[in-house]
């Protein structure tokens, strides 16, 4: 017993250490957000996903594709056929088309130096999942932070105090001033800084900002709301069968509870039959 306890404690310790190790290096951990579709029985916030579909079609799909989803499938979120048609028209497509953007791969490569990744699985394909995608959309510098960078770069010299301020504003885990200066030079040279992107510089300029589009349902159009909605939509796009999966077991249990297991007497008298029956049921 004592050995088993030691063993369990060791397993626990061994699984905890990598977390400590991981946190110490690389890009900062994206802050955890509240996603109603997560958790054991969480379901998609359909209203949010609908708004997110609008953001995705009107903004993201300018460069990205969401090719594993067809426009017509958006009706599962509650869009009417007419609404789906008009969403498809935004990108010059019809409702039976896949959600591919207007920009083709070669044009995108010319513009950004890289083909923008397809977003169909983006919330499953990056560590940090929904939180990561949300953090990227909110990880660009605010006006105040941009002003700080310009102030620091005005005299081309980083004081101790400024280095500390930069570290907390840009979420950089380094006190190496040369390293900081390199980043600031790229930044003022026009590259897009992102606090949560590994290496901090992605080819994507800030895609969303406050009040960028007006929601059809009149919801507030802040950056936080836009990015929350679009991530909810992308989570749905990444696994449209999630709700079916989570509710599946509950349905099975409801079915099993209709019957009941054979009484002990039957077990004793007809063990073989009960055994075979159980096997079939299993």
């Amino acid at each position, binding site marked *: 017993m004592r050995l088993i306890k030691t063993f369990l404690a060791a397993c626990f310790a061994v699984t905890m*250490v990598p977390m400590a190790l991981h946190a110490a290096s690389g890009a900062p951990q994206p802050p955890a957000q509240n996603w109603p579709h997560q958790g054991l029985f969480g379901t998609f916030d359909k209203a949010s996903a609908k708004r997110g579909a609008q953001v995705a079609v009107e903004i993201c799909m300018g460069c990205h594709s969401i090719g594993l989803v067809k426009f017509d499938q958006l009706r599962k979120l509650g869009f009417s056929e007419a609404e789906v048609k008009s969403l498809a028209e935004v990108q010059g497509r019809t409702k039976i088309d896949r959600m591919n953007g207007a920009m083709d791969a070669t044009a995108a490569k010319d513009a950004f130096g890289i083909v923008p*990744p397809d977003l*169909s*699985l983006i919330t499953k394909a990056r560590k940090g999942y929904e939180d990561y995608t949300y953090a990227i959309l909110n990880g660009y510098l605010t006006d105040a932070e941009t002003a700080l960078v310009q102030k620091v770069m005005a005299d081309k010299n980083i004081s101790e105090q400024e280095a500390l301020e930069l570290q907390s504003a840009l979420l950089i885990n380094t006190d190496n001033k040369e390293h900081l200066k390199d980043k600031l030079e790229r930044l003022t040279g026009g590259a897009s800084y992102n606090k949560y992107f590994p290496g901090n510089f992605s080819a994507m300029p800030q895609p969303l900002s406050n009040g960028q589009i007006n929601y059809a349902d009149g919801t507030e159009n802040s950056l936080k709301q836009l990015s929350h909605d679009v991530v909810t939509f992308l989570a749905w796009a990444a696994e449209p*069968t999630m709700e079916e999966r989570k509710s599946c*077991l509950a349905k099975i249990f409801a079915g099993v509870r209709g019957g009941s297991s054979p009484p002990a007497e039957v077990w004793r008298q007809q063990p073989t039959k009960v055994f075979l029956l159980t096997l079939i049921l299993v």
Partner: protein
Amino acid sequence: MSKIMEWIDARLPVTELIKSQATEYPTPKNLNYWWNFGSLALMVLIIMIATGLFLAMHYKPDALLAFNSVEHIMRDVNYGWLLRYMHANGATFFFVAVYIHILRGMYYGSYRAPREILWWIGIVIFFMLMGTAFMGYVLPWGQMSYWGAAVITNLMSAIPVVGEDLVVWIWGGFAVADPTLNRFFVLHFLLPLLVVGVVVVHLWALHAVHSNNPVGIDLHEGKDTLPFHPYFTIKDLYGMGVFLIVYCYFVFFAPNAFIEADNYIPADPMQTPAHIVPEWYFLPFYAILRAIDFLGAYSKLAGVVAMVLSIAILFILPFLDRSPVRSFRYRPLSKQLFWIFVVNAFVLGWVGYNPPDASLFHGAVPLILIGRVSTAIYFSYFVLLWLITALDIEKPRPVPKSL
């Protein structure tokens, strides 16, 4: 009904076989729950073959189509998500069952005479499972699939003289590509069917010598045994229920817990992921492979040899253990070695999970050092077990004469 059975039995003694090998098969009455994991592994094998068969009906083993065909299964095939998540998590639970099954055999001395052949067949099954799992992981053709395949197949190039040509032959070209995927699919389909055959031989060998038991002594049939049915059918079913609850939790509520996020990115031969990690069940062996990096040009070959040896050494375990007592329950020193071995396997897994240049305490303890020490501990289990038993250093506690 009985007349039909009589007719059949006169020609093929089915009833007699079921009686002697299943319902009335004498089974030690003191088996504990660690003895459930053989039947659990068989259950997972059946789940894997059943789900795999239906997945194969929708999957396309083509470098251009494979990734999207998996997503087609997830999205468009009725209950395709269930098939795929059962299959992907089934691999994890297969190895959970098999590792516990192997460790149970090591702890209670199930490899000792007269069960050596039974034990060897088990190791053969384990090797076949590892091959099957590795090739199965390549099929979704995500980034980890591709680069995992590249890293592991590349190891073959360490083999002297023929290595380089062998790798090209395995790849079907000069890199992991479409021909590799296609043949891995064929082999991934074939191997489990061969596993079924070897499992039948495993059961045959088991029924020839009968089950070992926690006390590790030879039993008197009738006095110390119970008929398999209903006593162990119900116990196995209960174990399956518990096991399936945990399995279903992952399938339905956390199906991606064991899947690297990178594998949802389509394979891209031009872009190497930041960290290439194998599936969790290969991590300890991956750590052993990487631990040997101090032999210059021979490091790669030595690493591969050490990795293969870490499992192959189980073949000679029956001859290394010279103790008069089978079960570690009565062997204080062996028991301690065993638990050090188990905890050490987790340490190796953790080392294998982290990047090779990682370190603890801000660079004070490089992980590669921990990997080397853990590898040494892993192999010293076998040496020490032999030493303490061959030189009679261990004084076993008294063993009961009967149950």
